[in-house]
C-alpha cells in the first residue's frame, strides 16, 4: 500500500502533509509554513550551519537525535521523524534549555544569526552522548560558521552544559516514541503539480518505481542533488528517495570483507571503519560537517563520482568493489573500473548501487591524506590514499589513488608499477614520485593550482614512505 501523506512529529503532535512539494526545503517549510523564523538561511548549500535543525529518529526503541542542514533537505524526507527547531528547546513554562542557558552565560553569541544553528548542533551532540570532550565538541560544530566570536566562548558553553541529557525531551521521550510509532509505514508516492516523489520500502518496490519512472533522480543523502533547486533554481521533477529501504542500509563483515549497504550514512561508516582503517576514519571526520555526514551516504558519494569525493581514492586504494542492481540481477564491479569520465560512471539508467565491499587487509600499510584550505568541512584540493604490503624489505603489493588530480578519482598506475616488487627504500620512492606527472595532469582552480597539486601529490608519497618506515606520524593535525 502506498500513501501520499508525509507524517512527522512536531511540538508533541503528529503533523500530516498531503502531497507536499517535493522540491520545498525543510528550511522554507519551517520559515514559511510553520512561521518559525529562528532557523536561518546562511548559504542554502549546507556550508554554514545557520539552518541546522535536529531530527529525532527511532532506533532500537530509543530516539536518536541527528543535526541536519534544513536548507538542503526536502520536506517529504521529514516522514517518520521528530522535527525539532530552536524555538522548541524553550520549555512550555518559558525556561531555557541547558544548551541555551550555557550559550547565553558564556557570551557565545554576538550578532546572533548563527547562534540557533550552534544551539541545535550542540543540543544533538549532548543528547546522543552524556560526556563530550573538546574533540567531540569541535566535531559537533565543525559545520557551523560564526564570523563574530572566534568560537572560544561557544566551545566553553558546550563544555559546561548542565543536565542536558535529562531534559524535557528525555522526560517526553515515551510520549514521543508512541507518537513516532503511530506514523504510517507505507511507501510514499507524492504528486504535486508536475512533480513526483517516491519513497519505496523495499528493493522490489524500488525496481518497479524505476521501471515506470526511468527519468527519476535518486535521492540518498541529497546533499548534492538538492543544490539543483537551491542554487541552480531548477526543478527536480521526479525524485526517488532510497532512504526508507532497509535492505540498502546495513553494515556487515563476511569473508574478511566489510560490506556497507549503499545508503549507510557516512557517519556510521566512519564509526565502524575506525577499527580497521584509522586513516579512513580520519578522512571521514574531515569529509564534511556532522550535519552532512549524518545524511550523506557512502553509495551517494560513489554514484556522484566527483573527482573530489573523499571516500573514493580511499576505496580505490583498498580495491573496493560495488554491487550494482541491474535489470537482470546483480553485477559486481571493481570501483577502479567504475568511473569513466567527469561525473560519469558505468551506472546505466535505472541501475543503482546496492552495496560496497571493502577487503580487510591485515598486514598492509594503509594511510590516507587530505589537503584542503581548511581542516573542517572543506573540499579536498588533493586527497591521497596508499595501500602497501612489504615483504622482506620489498614492496609486494601497492595501490595508490588520488582525488583532485584528474577528472575522476584515479589510481596512480605508473607509480604503482614502478614500486611493485621494488625495494622499500627512500630512493625508490624519490624516483616513484616523479612518475606521478605521468599519471596525472591536474587543473588549476579556486582551491589550488596545478603546480601545487602535483607537488603535494609527490610530497604525500614521500610522507607516506617516511611515516611507514618510521612508524610515526608527521602531521600538524594530531
Amino acid at each position, binding site marked *: 500500500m502506498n500513501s501520499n501523506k508525509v507524517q512527522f512529529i512536531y511540538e508533541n503532535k503528529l503533523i500530516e502533509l498531503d502531497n507536499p512539494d517535493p522540491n520545498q526545503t525543510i528550511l522554507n517549510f519551517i520559515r514559511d509554513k510553520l512561521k518559525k523564523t529562528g532557523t536561518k538561511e546562511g548559504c542554502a548549500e549546507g556550508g554554514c550551519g545557520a539552518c541546522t535543525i535536529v531530527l529525532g529518529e527511532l532506533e532500537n526503541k530509543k530516539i536518536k537525535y541527528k543535526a541536519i542542514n534544513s536548507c538542503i533537505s526536502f520536506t517529504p524526507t521529514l516522514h517518520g521523524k521528530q522535527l525539532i527547531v530552536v524555538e522548541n528547546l524553550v520549555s512550555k513554562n518559558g525556561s531555557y534549555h541547558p544548551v541555551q542557558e550555557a550559550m547565553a552565560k558564556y557570551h557565545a553569541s554576538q550578532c546572533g544569526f548563527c547562534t540557533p544553528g550552534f544551539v541545535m548542533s550542540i543540543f544533538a551532540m549532548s543528547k546522543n552522548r552524556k560526556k563530550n570532550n573538546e574533540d567531540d565538541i569541535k566535531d559537533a560544530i565543525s559545520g557551523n*560558521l560564526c564570523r563574530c566570536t572566534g568560537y572560544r566562548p561557544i566551545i566553553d558553553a558546550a563544555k559546561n552544559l548542565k543536565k542536558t541529557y535529562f531534559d524535557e525531551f528525555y522526560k517526553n521521550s515515551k510520549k514521543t516514541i508512541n507518537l513516532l510509532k503511530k506514523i504510517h509505514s507505507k511507501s510514499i508516492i507524492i504528486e504535486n503539480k508536475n512533480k513526483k516523489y517516491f519513497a519505496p520500502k523495499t528493493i522490489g518496490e524500488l525496481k518497479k518505481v524505476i521501471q515506470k519512472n526511468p527519468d527519476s533522480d535518486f535521492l540518498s543523502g541529497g546533499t548534492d542533488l538538492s543544490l539543483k533547486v537551491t542554487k541552480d533554481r531548477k526543478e527536480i521533477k521526479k525524485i526517488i528517495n532510497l532512504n526508507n529501504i532497509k535492505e540498502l542500509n546495513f553494515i556487515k563483515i563476511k569473508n574478511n570483507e566489510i560490506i556497507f549497504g549503499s545508503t549507510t550514512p557516512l557517519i556510521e561508516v566512519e564509526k565502524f571503519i575506525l577499527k580497521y582503517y584509522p586513516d579512513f576514519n580520519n578522512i571521514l571526520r574531515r569529509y564534511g560537517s556532522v550535519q552532512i555526514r549524518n545524511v550523506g551516504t557512502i553509495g551517494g558519494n560513489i554514484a556522484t563520482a566527483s573527482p573530489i569525493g573523499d571516500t573514493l581514492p580511499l576505496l580505490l586504494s583498498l580495491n573496493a568493489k560495488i554491487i550494482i542492481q541491474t535489470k537482470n540481477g546483480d553485477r559486481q564491479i571493481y570501483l577502479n573500473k567504475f568511473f569513466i569520465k567527469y561525473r560519469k560512471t558505468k551506472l546505466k539508467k535505472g541501475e543503482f548501487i546496492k552495496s560496497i565491499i571493502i577487503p580487510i587487509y591485515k598486514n598492509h600499510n594503509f594511510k590516507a591524506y587530505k589537503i584542503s584550505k581548511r581542516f573542517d568541512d572543506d573540499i579536498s584540493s588533493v586527497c591521497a590514499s596508499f595501500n602497501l604490503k612489504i615483504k622482506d624489505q620489498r614492496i609486494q603489493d601497492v595501490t595508490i589513488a588520488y582525488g583532485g588530480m584528474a577528472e575522476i578519482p584515479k589510481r596512480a598506475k605508473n607509480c604503482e608499477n614502478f614500486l611493485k616488487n621494488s625495494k622499500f627504500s627512500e630512493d625508490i620512492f624519490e624516483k616513484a614520485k616523479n612518475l606521478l606527472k605521468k599519471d596525472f595532469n591536474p587543473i588549476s582552480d579556486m582551491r589550488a593550482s596545478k603546480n601545487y597539486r602535483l607537488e603535494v601529490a609527490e610530497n*604525500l608519497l614521500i610522507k607516506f614512505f617516511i611515516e611507514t618506515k618510521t612508524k610515526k606520524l608527521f602531521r600538524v593535525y594530531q
Partner: protein
Amino acid sequence: MKNSDNYISEIRPHDSSYKHVSGTAEYTDDIKEPYDTLFGAIGWSKKAYAKIKKIDLNEVINSEGVVSVVNYLDIPGRNDVGPVFDGDPIFVKDKVEFFGQPIFAVAATSIELARKAVLKAKINYIEYEPIITLKDSLDKKNLLFDVRKITKGNAQKKILSSKHTLKGNFTTGSQEHFYLEGQVAFVIPKEDNEMTVYSSTQHPSETQQLIAKMLNQKSNSITVLVRRIGGGFGGKETNFMTAAICSLLAYKTKKPVKLRLDRDDDIILTGKRHEFFSDYEVGFDDKGIIKGLKIKLASKCGMSPDLSYAINERALLHIDNAYYLSDLQVENYLCKTNTSTSTAFRGFGGNQGMMAIENIIDNISRFLNKDPLEVRKNNFYKKNKKNITHYGMKIQDNIINELFEKLVQDAKYLKRKNEIKKFNIKNKIKKKGIAITPVKFGISFTTIHLNQAGALVHVYTDGSVYLNHGGIEMGQGTHTKIAQVVANSLGLPYEKVKISSTNTAKVPNTSASAASSTTDLNAAAALNATFKIKKNLEKFIKDKYKIFSKEEPIYKNESIIFGNRSFEFKKIVMEAYLSRVSLSSSGFYSTPKIKFNKKKFTGRPFYYFCYGAAVSEVTIDTLTGENILERVDILHDAGNAINPAIEFGQIEGGFVQGQGWLTMEEVKWNDNGQITTFSPSTYKIPAVSDIPKKFNVEIYKKGKNVEDVVNKSKTTGEPPLMLAMSVFFAIKDAISSVSNYKKIPKLDAPATAENILLSIKELKKN
C-alpha cells in the same frame, strides 16, 4: 559635562543573548510580511566589462508570479548609491563594469519565482578587455584618483646614507565579509509616498538619504529602522543597492517588497576588502632602526570610488603602526578594476598599511639576523622623544613599550623561541615558528565631520527609561554597553532601560556604525541626553524640597541622594511629571580636539590610540604547507572596559577574523572577471578547528583612556583584527627555519598551505 565619575566595569550578557539562543531575535527577513508582500530579485551582468547591445526582458516579464520589472528608466531621481563620489549606479544604463553589476530587478509573488524569473533575461553584450588584477591595473595606470604623495623629511637621502638597505614588495589579499546574515531589505510604502525601510545596514541615515535622492523625494519621507543586523564588519557600511532597489520596487508596485540576496549573489554583487600591493626601499642601521623609507602603496579598488579614498587614507595613516619613521615618502595608487567595488572592512586600510611596515621590519630583522622582537622594540615610538607621527600628530597616550614588554614576559617569548629553535633542529618535516607583533590603531573617523552622534532618552512616569541612539547593533554589543552606562548614570538597574531599534525618525543625521567609534560617540550622546533630564529633575527637587546643598546629587540604587535626602527615582519622576517637568531629551556629542588637513596630510585625525600585542606560535608541515596555530597570547588595551565580557568577545573574534584574512581566506577571480569563490564551499572562513589550541587573552589592566571618553574606556572594534599579524609572521618564522634562519622568505598574504609550500620551495632554490 565630565564623564569622569561613576566608572563601571560590569560583566553582563549581550542584551539579546536569550533571544539569540532561542531564535526569537528578529532580523529583517524575520519580520512578518503583510499578505500582499512581493519579493524581489536582481538581474545582473554576466560580463565584467561590456556595452549592452540588446536587452530582452520579455520572458522575465512573462515569467510566473512576476508583478513588476524595473531598470534604470524607472528611477525618478539619482541613479547612483555612491556615498561620497558618484560611480555606483543602481542599475546600469548601457555600460557594465563588473561581473555581477545590477541591470534590472523584479518583484514577484514569491522569492523563488522572483529568482527564477531574473535568470530568463536575454542580454547581448559587446565585450571589452577587462582589467581584473591589481597588477594589471597598476601597470596600465588605470587609476580612480591622482597619485597621492606623502613626504616627511628626505627619505631618499636617508636611504642613501644608511648602512644597510633592502628592497622588496609585498601583497595582502582581499577578503569577503561573510557576515552570516546577507544583505536584505524590507520596504513598506505608506501614505504621501512615505516609505518605511527595514534594512540590514550599518548606515541607516545614508540609506535614507540615498533612497530619497533616488526617488526624488525629501529625506523626511523615508524612515529607516534597524533593530539588529547579523554581522556587518564594514560590508554593510555602504552597499546601499539592496535597500535602494527594494525601495524602487515598492515605489513602483505600491506594495511591500522584501529583497534578500542569496549567499552567491551577496558575494558576487557586493564589495570586499582591498587587496594591497607595496613596493618599498628602506635604509636602516645595525640595530635595525629605520632611517628612511620609500614606499609605493597600491590598492585594488574595484569599479568605483566607494570609500576607497578614505580607506587608502587610513592605510597611509597606519603605515607607521607603532614605529617612529623620521623620513618617509609614500606614493598611493588607487587602482580601478572591473571587479565589484572594494569597500569598508574591519581595519579599513589601517591593517593593510600596518602589514606593509610589519613585513619590512620582519625582513630587516632577518637581514640583520636579529630577533624581530628586538628590531620592533628599537623602532617603537617613545614617550618623550620620537613621538611625532609622520602626519605631525604628537602621541600622548603611548603605552606600547610597557605593554609589549609585559607580554614578552607573560608569554615567555624568549624561552619558547629557544625551545622552538631546538625543535626545528631536530625535526625535518614539521617546523615551528613564533612571532610577536604590536598594534597601534587610531580612533576617530578621519573625515572629521562624521565624528558626531545623537541620542534620544525618555523617562516614563513609572521610572522606566527608553533609549534610542544612532548606533547599529551588529553583534558588537553597543546597545548593551550604552544601556549599561545610561542605567549607571541614572542609578537604575540595567533592566529599567529599554533598548530600541535605530530609527532615522528618532535620531537624525547619524554616522555609520563604523571606525570602531559607535559606542564612544553614541554613549556620549546618550549620556548628554541623560544629563539634561537629570538637570531638569535636580532643578525640580531643589525648588520643591528647598535643597541648598552645593554637592552634586548621587544617583544610586534607584534613588537620587541630594542634600542629605534620598528620593526614590520612581516617585520623584512622577512628581516631576505632575509638576510639568520635561522627562525627555535628545542628546548630542561631537569628538573634541580632532582636526586633519587632508591636503597637507597633517593634524590630529585621531582622538586617541588603541594598543595591543600578540604572540603566536605555529607549526607548519614543510611537505604540504599545512599549518596549525598552536598557541596565542594576547594583551590588549581596552581602557577601562564598560563590559569586559563583550570586549573579550571583540578581541577574540577580531583576532580570528584577522587570522582568516592572513592565512586562509582567498577571493579569486578568473581571467574574464568572474569571481570563483562565491559560496562557503569555495570561500573558507575560519571554522572551529582553526582557532589557537591555546588561547590566552588578557585585557591590559593598567589601561585607561587619557582622553575624556565614556567610562575612560577604549573601543575594541577594529584593533584586535591586527593582532593576527603575529600569526602571519610566526608562519614566516617557521618557513625561515628551513634555511636555518639564514634567508628571508618571500611570503605574501594570505599564507595558505599553497603559498607556504611555494615560499619554502623558493627558499630551498636560492
